[in-house]
């Protein structure tokens, strides 16, 4: 049995008659057709013909409606069926209503259920719709947010890219002006930014202010002490330095290593809060890189100045200095070493113009030695003492190159050689002196004894023989006397002396040397005198004649000639020493009177003679010159003012 509401089920019989049978547990209400509205019931039964006109309204089409078809014509049946949702057509009133009611109730219940489900469904649907709407809103919001943040991200990205570009540009900058230009560009879109300032300085020194205005960058230097960097004083300084009033300044310090200090500043007239914030952000992002670049530039500048100073110092050394690698290739030479020549050549090529290392160079073959090297080389007319120190690769003991310093010892060497020569000479002189003294004794004896014997045996031939002996002994004494005088050195007295006499005094000393040669003497100076230190002039004559003798290997002519010549109204005494030896080549002849120029091999002779001779001759107002050509002998011509230094005056 379907469950019913607490009240009894109600049947409404509308129309004619009454049911033949009604269920006992249902309430039956009969009645005529209502005019407007059919009543609500568990079952409505429509019986008989409906009224004409508008049929009453069924309030709820869930109300089950049954129809009795007895007595209805087709038209009426159709009308009712059209109007109402009839679920059962009953043949006649005799049909039992019990099962019909059950069915009706069942139907109604189903209908209710269905309606509930539908309602529920509707509600659910609405809920869903509501949720969907919410979701859409949320999505829309989210999308909006995402879009906003994507825009933001894009902006950020753009800013980052700009910053990266700035950083990479600034790392390659070579001047503070460039930094300013780039910063200016970064702030380009802020039209009310008037100028940009970068100031860098050292505590206790100078601060340089760079100010970009329009296209130009201006500079000014101020004392760092007066530059405190607070906005007010900064404006004051800028106004003073750049000759115009300055507007408001936004200033950001640059992080520099002490004692350096710096700041970057923006001059503006009016800026909104947002703009100020943005500019401040932009500057902040760039402050560190800017500071580093500023420091780098300052370091580079200092390095450059140090490099210039080092170069100048290096070039300022008077002594040549070379830095070479282990292949003797020049890495760096100062001006005295290589002048303006490019490196990339060997040190001996540049310094000495040679194709091989200089003779005596201690570096050749030992360029990679870890020891200090020393040696002596000759380059042209100069002699250098060379010192070379190894340069080690960083932190290792491997030698990567050398520093070589050249000490020009040409004069010093000449001086020491001259001194050596003097010592030699004085040693020889002493020796000669000793020998002379030693010889004097027996000679004295020989001569004296010969004289005594001559007295006792004057008759020839003994007397004559003894005379020869005595004469020979006397001659020996003369030679010894001359030798002693010669070797003892000059007593410095400058006297008027006859040139011919001096020559005659000197020649005996050269007898041995002249022995092999044909000696020709033509002394025509007569009484002509010159003002001279006799001993020194003897040295000169000795030297020249000795050279002339040595010029011939075998035998030849050696001539000495004196005469008086007149030139420009002044009398001169001329002395010539001539030989017909092989002559002197032009290169040597030009350098003949330089000290230590010699045609003899090292060890033979010292070459000092001619330069000393020239010095002596010139000391007494004379001149000496040499005429010679290869194959045509040589002639040395000395000329002295006659009578004294002022020629002609006795």
């Amino acid at each position, binding site marked *: 049995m379907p469950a019913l509401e607490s009240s009894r089920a109600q049947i409404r019989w509308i129309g004619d008659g009454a049911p033949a049978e009604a269920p006992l547990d249902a309430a039956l209400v009969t009645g005529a057709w209502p005019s407007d509205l059919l009543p609500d019931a568990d079952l409505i039964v429509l019986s008989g013909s409906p009224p004409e006109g508008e049929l009453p309204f069924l309030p709820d089409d869930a109300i089950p409606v049954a129809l009795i078809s007895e007595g209805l014509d087709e038209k009426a049946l159709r009308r009712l069926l059209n109007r109402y949702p009839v679920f059962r057509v009953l043949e006649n009133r005799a049909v039992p209503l019990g099962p019909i009611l059950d069915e009706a109730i069942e139907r109604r219940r189903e209908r209710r259920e269905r309606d509930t489900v539908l309602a529920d469904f509707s509600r659910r649907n609405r809920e869903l719709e509501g949720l969907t709407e919410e979701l859409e809103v949320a999505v829309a919001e989210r999308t909006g947010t995402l879009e906003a943040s994507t825009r933001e991200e894009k902006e950020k990205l753009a800013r980052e890219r700009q910053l990266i570009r700035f950083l990479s540009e600034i790392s390659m900058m070579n001047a503070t002006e460039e930094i300013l230009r780039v910063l200016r560009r970064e702030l380009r879109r802020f039209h009310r930014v008037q100028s940009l300032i970068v100031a860098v300085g050292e505590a206790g020194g100078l601060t340089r202010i760079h100010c970009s205005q329009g296209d130009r960058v201006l500079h000014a230097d101020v004392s760092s002490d007066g530059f405190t960097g607070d906005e007010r004083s900064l404006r004051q300084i800028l106004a003073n330095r750049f000759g115009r009033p300055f507007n408001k300044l936004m200033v950001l310090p640059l992080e520099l290593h002490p004692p350096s200090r710096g700041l970057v500043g923006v001059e503006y007239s009016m800026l909104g809060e947002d703009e100020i914030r943005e500019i401040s952000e932009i500057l902040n992002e760039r402050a560190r890189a800017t500071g580093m670049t500023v420091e780098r530039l300052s370091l580079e500048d200092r390095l450059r100045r140090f490099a210039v100073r080092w170069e100048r110092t290096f070039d300022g050394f008077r002594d040549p200095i070379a830095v070479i690698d282990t292949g003797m290739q020049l890495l760096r030479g100062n001006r005295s070493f290589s002048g303006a020549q490019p490196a990339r050549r060997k040190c001996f090529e540049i310094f000495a113009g040679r194709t091989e290392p200089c003779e005596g160079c201690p570096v050749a073959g030992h360029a990679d030695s870890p020891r200090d090297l020393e040696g002596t080389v000759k380059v042209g007319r100069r002699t250098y003492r060379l010192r070379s120190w190894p340069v080690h690769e960083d932190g290792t003991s491997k030698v990567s190159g050398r520093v070589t310093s050249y000490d020009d010892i040409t004069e010093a060497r000449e001086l020491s050689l001259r001194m050596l020569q003097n010592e030699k000479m004085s040693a020889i002189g002493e020796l000669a002196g000793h020998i002379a003294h030693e010889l004097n004794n027996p000679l004295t004896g020989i001569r004296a004894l010969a004289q*005594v014997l001559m007295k006792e045996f004057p008759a020839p031939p003994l007397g004559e023989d003894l005379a020869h002996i005595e004469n020979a002994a006397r001659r020996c004494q003369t030679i010894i006397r001359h030798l002693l005088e010669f070797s003892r050195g000059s007593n410095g007295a400058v006297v008027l002396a006859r040139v011919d006499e001096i020559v005659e005094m000197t020649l005996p000393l050269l007898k041995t040397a002249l022995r092999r040669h044909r000696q020709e003497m033509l002394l025509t100076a007569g009484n002509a005198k010159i003002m001279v230190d006799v001993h020194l002039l003897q040295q000169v004559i000795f030297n020249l004649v000795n050279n002339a003798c040595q010029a011939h290997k075998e035998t030849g002519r050696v001539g000495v000639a004196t005469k008086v010549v007149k030139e420009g109204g002044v009398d001169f005494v001329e002395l010539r020493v001539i030989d017909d030896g092989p002559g002197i080549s032009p290169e040597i002849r030009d350098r003949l009177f330089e000290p230590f120029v010699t045609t003899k091999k090292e060890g033979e002779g010292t070459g000092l003679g001619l330069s000393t001779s020239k010095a002596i001759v010139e000391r007494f107002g004379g001149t000496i010159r040499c005429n010679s050509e290869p194959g045509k002998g040589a002639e040395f011509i000395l000329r002295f003012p006659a009578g004294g230094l002022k020629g002609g005056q006795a």
Partner: protein
Amino acid sequence: MKVLVVDDEALVRRSLGRALKAGGHEVFEAADGAAGLEAWRVNDPDLVFLDVLMPGLTGPQVISSYGPRRAKVVLMSAFVGDEAAGDTNHDGADLFLPKPFDDIFVVVKRAEELMK
């Protein structure tokens, strides 16, 4: 007169001695300073010829070793120079004759003049 010749060169002693003997003088000889000093003391010569440079005692040293003397002293030397002459003056010789001798007889003559 009695003459002493002190010189380490034999030829000088011989030749000077011969020249002096030719002049009629008695000659004693000594070959070095020490022997000369001895001969001086022993023979008491009137005139002494002394060489300056000799092995052992030098001429001046002989003079100062002898001390106060009667004889005249002639110093002879191959060394000519300011120092030598100076020293001689200080050493108290009566005559200084540089060697080599030009003429031995002139030497004798000068010595004889010294004795007058």
